[in-house]
């Protein structure tokens, strides 16, 4: 179902402009994040780098941010890869995974760190030349020092540098 939906969106999306040799390999994204497991909200900026080609599908992601909620604040540090399915289209679904060190600062208790594996599924839309808006969900699973859950939802913009 998801695959069909994404395929339909791909087919419907108009192609972007032709290959641009001056296109940047770097982008910055600034999503607002709401964490649904351990309620918290904040900003989770990310730096994106496309090592293979400026308009390539493979993207490396480096991100950090600050989220706060009624019971805790958290600071994630993320490194991962993202595969953009149709990088030159206006509408681009993507998926990715990576590792995320979560530093939890629960109110009234000592800070704790947890290493997570995160997945991400998202969609972004080019609105003007190098600007995109997008949304994303990112399930997280704790690897060490123990099991844990997480689910981040993000809404924000991205700009090519």
């Amino acid at each position: 179902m998801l695959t069909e939906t994404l395929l339909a969106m791909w087919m419907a999306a108009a192609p972007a402009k032709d290959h641009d040799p001056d296109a940047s390999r770097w982008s910055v994204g600034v999503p607002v994040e709401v964490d649904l497991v351990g309620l918290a909200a904040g900003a989770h900026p990310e730096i994106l780098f496309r090592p293979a080609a400026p308009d390539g599908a493979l993207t490396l992601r480096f991100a950090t941010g600050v989220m706060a909620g009624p019971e805790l604040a958290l600071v994630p540090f993320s490194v991962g890869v993202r595969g953009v399915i149709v990088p030159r289209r206006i509408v681009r679904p993507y998926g990715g995974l990576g590792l995320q060190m979560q530093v939890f600062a629960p109110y009234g208790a000592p800070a704790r760190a947890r290493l997570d594996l995160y997945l991400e599924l998202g969609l972004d839309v080019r609105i003007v030349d190098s600007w995109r808006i997008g949304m994303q969900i990112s399930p997280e699973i704790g690897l060490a020092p123990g099991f844990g859950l997480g689910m981040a939802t993000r809404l924000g913009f991205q700009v090519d540098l």
Partner: protein
Amino acid sequence: MRTALLLMLLLVPEASAHRPSTADAVTTIDDPTVSWVVNGELHDGDEVFRVKLDFPHPFALPFELMTEHRAGAADFRPALAIVGPGLPPASDEVAARLPLPVPEGWGVYVDFNEATDREVYFEQVMRRTMYTTGSFAIALREGPNEVWIWNPDETPGDWQLGLGVEEDFTGGAFSDIFSHWGQYAY
């Protein structure tokens, strides 16, 4: 995606979590020799929860009772009693404060949750910050034992009882979290 999920499963190390369960007024824990977190809600405040544990042999394990660490729940202090054979008999003063009579031949461990300074515990599976009575280890006899949870102040609130440390997540252990999401997640 499938590769990612397989990778995720392969990478999951030994968990550090209790098997979740949601409490009814009388709740029987199928296997008290593995770790559980039992979630309950005092709707009216005057209910008494009875968690029944039937040990196949004498068994020592840690317990703790947790409540939400947030301003609106700061005064919610449910009490906990472990009742069973081999525990010391309740004094008249303690017996008068218990919500139920202690069965003949049984004794009691009780924590009225009256400590001035309470421990705060971060539960990393669901990322909850909780007040806790603090962990305490106790040796219980073979056969039936019970844990009673009630609030002497008769005010409503959510509580979590953690017991044991041996993890067993077989048989859809986490399905209870998703069917009672509001009680586990903030």
